[in-house]
């Protein structure tokens, strides 16, 4: 684990150039590697050629540009999948699951086809461009679909791991890439399907995040420790299937805070609440998420600050629960 960085929030637009190739574009890198190992892997771009430049260079015959036509891309990928290929569709998150929900449901999920949808710039990563570019309902939509696997990597290393490890799954996979993450894993971690690794131990409160929420939870745990509150942290890397046992274990702390760059409706907070209710777990619950309301527009770092998606915001919610 790395120490939380001094500056917790990353603005993907102003800082991308400072990153090395892998950290700036781990999903593109992971797919290029996957393409080396498996000739069934195809890269489909809905006008996201930059992300796929490496794949295109190494496997030009298996790179398929489909233009600004996401719905066609999803159905077309389903056709490719019936012929034994493993199509990875890269799209901007608001125009992936959200725009193509019906194609994903009817053509891909109902038919159990191994189409992979990689949503870049999830959450409020494009918050500056307007609410049309917010992608905060995608998990809620995707998790109602049968047969699908949903993963939300916490950082670049988790992206590499989850793209590789879900490659051989039979059904569809939605890989929700959260930009602006802080590094959580020093090296490429190993995930077990449907399990949430515990990244930090503590008995006073449990913080559970996915995507960028994991880094926030880790940083919040450090702040809480300084105040004498020991938080355990889970990485909810898999949102479908999710780790029900981890939630039951977390409930023993008596206080759970979920952290996500997603709507408060239907995401991780809802998943945990459903399990608490169904299993009659005795725990308090707070959800740090985006409100079910008209959202503001601005650069990501400022938006996340505004909505309390900061280490301080998470720590404050945890302290309130444990008070």
């Amino acid at each position, binding site marked *: 684990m790395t120490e939380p960085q001094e500056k917790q929030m990353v603005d993907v637009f102003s800082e991308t150039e400072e990153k090395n190739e892998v950290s700036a574009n781990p999903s593109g890198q992971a797919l290029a590697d996957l393409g080396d190992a498996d000739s069934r892997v*195809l890269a489909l771009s809905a006008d996201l050629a930059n992300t796929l430049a490496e794949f295109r260079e190494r496997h030009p*015959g*298996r790179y*398929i540009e*489909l*233009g600004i*036509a996401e*719905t*066609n891309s*999803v*159905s*077309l*990928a*389903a*056709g*490719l*999948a*019936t*012929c*034994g*290929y493993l*199509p990875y569709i890269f799209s901007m998150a608001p125009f992936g699951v959200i725009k193509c929900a*019906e*194609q994903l449901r*009817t*053509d891909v999920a*109902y*038919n*159990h086809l191994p189409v992979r949808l990689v949503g870049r710039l999830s959450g409020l990563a494009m918050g500056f461009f307007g609410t049309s570019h917010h992608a905060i309902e995608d998990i809620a939509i995707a998790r109602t679909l049968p047969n699908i696997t949903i993963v939300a990597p916490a950082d670049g290393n988790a992206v590499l791991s989850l793209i590789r490890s879900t490659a051989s799954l039979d059904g569809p996979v939605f890989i929700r890439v959260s930009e602006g993450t802080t590094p959580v894993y020093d090296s490429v971690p190993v995930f077990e399907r449907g399990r949430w690794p515990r990244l930090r131990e503590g008995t006073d409160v449990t913080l559970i995040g996915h995507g960028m929420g994991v880094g926030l939870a880790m940083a919040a745990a450090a702040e809480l420790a300084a105040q004498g509150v020991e938080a355990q942290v889970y990485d909810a890397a898999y949102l479908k299937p999710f780790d029900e046992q981890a939630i039951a274990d977390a409930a023993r702390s008596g206080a759970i805070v979920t952290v996500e760059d997603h709507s408060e409706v239907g995401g991780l907070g809802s998943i945990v609440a459903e399990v608490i209710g169904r299993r009659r777990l005795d725990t308090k619950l707070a959800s740090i998420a985006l409100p079910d309301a008209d959202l503001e527009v601005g650069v990501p770092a400022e938006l996340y600050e505004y909505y309390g998606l900061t280490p301080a915001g998470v720590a404050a919610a945890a302290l309130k629960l444990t008070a």
Partner: protein
Amino acid sequence: MSNGHEHAGDNEVTLERGRPASHTELSKRADWIRLRTVDLIAQAGLGHYSSTFSCAEIFATLYYHTLRLRPGEPDWPDRDRFLLGKGHVATGLWPVLADLGFYPRDWLKQFGSVGSPLNDHPNMRLAPGIDFSSGALGHNLSVATGIALAGRLSGRDYRTFVLTGDGELQEGQVWEAAMAASHYKLGNLVAVVDANGFSGSGPTSDAMNIEPLAARFSAFGWLTSEIDGHDIKALLAAFDGLPDPAGEQPVCIVARTRKGHGAALLEEAPQAWHLGLLPDPLREEVVAEIEARLA
């Protein structure tokens, strides 16, 4: 009627492209499809009559002459694909696939019951011979474009056919697919438009004008022709005259049809019999009219 291929259920038996079938045989086959459709709808209690009747000759010609199939091995990688964009006419396809040996004829008896592999719209996971599920209009030209593209990637020479309705062409995704198919030069893709002129609530182009259809596909880079979709001779000429699948232009055949064709009372009120259940006297009238032609 028998399909004339006694060993069609054996794995290795291939029904080759262009297998012999006379005009009369195919015409009778189309009427046989209509009769079986009426039977299946009576059994289920509800179904789509007139839009199935409009494509009966297209089904007959494709399945008994044009398509390269292997009923004993439905997933054979080199088979020609057929996707039913207008999935609501699957009722007309079920007896055909049973007759060709994709599944036992007994399966037809379950049509309309809970648990039947044969649904009102086709499900590829349940019914052998269905190359892709359908029901949501506007999707299958995209799916077929993906299958045709896969043929290019794998170097296989199969053709991919899609039967679309004309109302279906109002869906915007169709035109995204039309653009992609010509961009990738998919001469192995054939769209057949069952242009019967009606959609759910009335004449198609009253709701939203889709004409001139052939010119629109041509403008998208497709090789386009326009034929009478009930004329077996014209259908044979169109399918036999398809360019080599290695060609660079996707093909669109606009088949002008009449919704409800083949039974006067359906053709006179195609809208009323888009979806429904013929009461016994009307059903008997339709059956008698078709049987008189077959006699």
